[in-house]
């Protein structure tokens, strides 16, 4: 049954096989994608025609690698910018949210807390369209009243940032709140007692304590933003993010360049995840 109880051989072996299959299922598509990024064939398919780096470094017509692919490179750059702003904004607002819900008492706190959780159960597509609609309504209203055309209200970079921020901030709030729950509030009292004012207490004591959680949440926010598709789909303007660009390419046929990008994404995110993990382990 469990490791401390006697188990029959078939039970143990059966379980091992099941878990083995599960992990193969989990990694098979990723492994295949990575391997085919190095196949010297114009299609991401077998048979194996030899190892090549051309899908990374190539600059011949028809065999342009990712490092010379201006469309995908600029999409990556856009995604980086979006992710930077989203993680910055959501870390700040999410930390405020954690303080608000953990440390302050006010009327309608329950209602506001419930509202803060809402983005967790609202499909991303709906967040996308509702923000699109609202921005459009505002844009039309501003244009009719002030005869001003505000670019912020049209699909584009900042609307994507706001759309992703709207649900990623919830995640940051929850992660930071979880850490803040473990905070011993007598430390704040001690600091007050030693002459610090409320802002100094938050800055020197509470934020120091929260730092690993805030950094971790920021990293997760960055990744989630970088990979977001559903919300972004409706808000994107002329500057497409990487998932949108990739989607259009995958839908209309594929080249091994997509595998090369996928390979870089897999390696990059795994590294980021590992750094994040070791960092939080060390702090624990």
């Amino acid at each position, binding site marked *: *049954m*469990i*490791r401390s*109880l006697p*188990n029959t051989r078939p039970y143990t072996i059966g*379980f091992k096989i*099941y*878990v083995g299959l*599960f*992990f193969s299922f*989990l990694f098979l*598509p990723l492994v*295949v*994608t990575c391997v085919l990024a190095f196949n010297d064939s114009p*299609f991401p*398919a*077998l*048979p194996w025609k030899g190892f090549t780096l051309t899908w990374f470094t190539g600059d011949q017509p028809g065999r342009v690698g990712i490092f010379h692919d201006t469309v995908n490179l600029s999409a990556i750059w856009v995604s980086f910018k979006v992710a930077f702003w989203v993680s910055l904004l959501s870390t700040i*607002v999410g930390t*405020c949210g954690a303080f*608000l819900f953990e440390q*302050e008492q006010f009327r309608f706190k329950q209602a*506001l807390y*419930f509202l803060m*959780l809402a*983005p*967790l*159960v*609202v*499909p991303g*597509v*709906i*967040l996308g*369209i*509702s*923000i699109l*609609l*609202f921005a459009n*309504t505002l844009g039309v209203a501003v244009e009719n009243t002030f005869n001003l055309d505000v670019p912020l209200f049209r699909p584009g970079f900042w609307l994507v940032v706001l759309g992703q921020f709207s649900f990623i901030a919830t995640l940051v709030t*929850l992660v930071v709140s979880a850490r803040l729950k473990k905070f011993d509030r007598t430390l704040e009292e001690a600091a007050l007692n030693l002459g610090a*004012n*409320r*802002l100094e207490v*938050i800055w020197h004591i509470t934020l120091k304590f929260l730092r690993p959680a805030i950094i971790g949440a920021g990293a997760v926010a960055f*990744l989630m933003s*970088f*990979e977001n*598709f*559903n919300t972004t*789909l409706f808000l994107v303007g002329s500057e497409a993010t990487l998932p949108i660009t*990739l*989607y259009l390419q*995958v839908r209309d046929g*594929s080249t091994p360049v997509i595998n090369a990008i*996928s390979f870089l*994404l*897999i390696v990059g*995110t*795994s590294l*980021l995840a590992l750094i994040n993990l070791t960092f939080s382990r060390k702090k624990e």
Partner: protein
Amino acid sequence: MRSRRSLTFLLFITPVVLWLFLLIVLPHVDLLLMSFHTEDDSGAMVWSLVNYLNFFQEPVYWRTFMRTAIYAILVTMITFAVSLPVAFYITKVVSPRFSGFLSLLLLMPFWVSELVRVYGWMILLRESGVLNHFLMVSGLLQRPVEMLYNDVTMVMGLVYTSMLFMVVPLISVLESLDDSLIEAAYDLGGGIFSIVTRIIIPHAMPGIMSGGIVVFMLTLGNYLTPNLIGGKNSLWFTEQIYNQFIASFNWNQGAAFGFLLLVLSSSIIWLGLKLTRQKLSQVVQ
């Protein structure tokens, strides 16, 4: 003291309220209002129920809607059935030395973009894909078979995409289950079936619910997987929304669809919480 406290309070509450009202509440109110409007013959916006009438009168709309709902529930249940043994194995069966490593391994694909994962399945399963290549080389198949673009593959893809959101809460909830409870049940003569149904599942209920909610919500709102590996007949409701917004440019109709999807997802989540007597705020912990 008083003014200082309220200063920090304002510092905290202002961004949160701005966020929640400008990006969550008002957009959804606008969505609702838009869905009850339509253009009349002169092109002006008027109040109307026509968007909702369209939904009920056009079979393809509400059939897609029902299909999406039923498949999403099915995917959630399959995901749970697949994930529970894995979570149990990692937390309770495998030796503790490996359990940390295995849960780390499990998280890795979670970090990778959904698009990359779906793409991986596409190059595996399509007619010219890797699986067909191996089946042909080994002589099991004479001519390649298209394994994409059908409901089974789509469901598999959806399960794959959302599996981790089920396994992670299950692992954390099973970690909190004291081994001695299982030992006691075993000692009192319980078999595997009774231990799973009477001890493990009741204890894991919060984790099951939170995993279930996330998986259900993500599946219902999924666009990539049904769009890329689902068949021509496996239209997903999000695709209908997309079509209204981007292809037909009928935002009012799209808003109505969006609102219907929102009602569907919230009511099924609400029902699930009611049936298992849980609260949303507990489940997200």
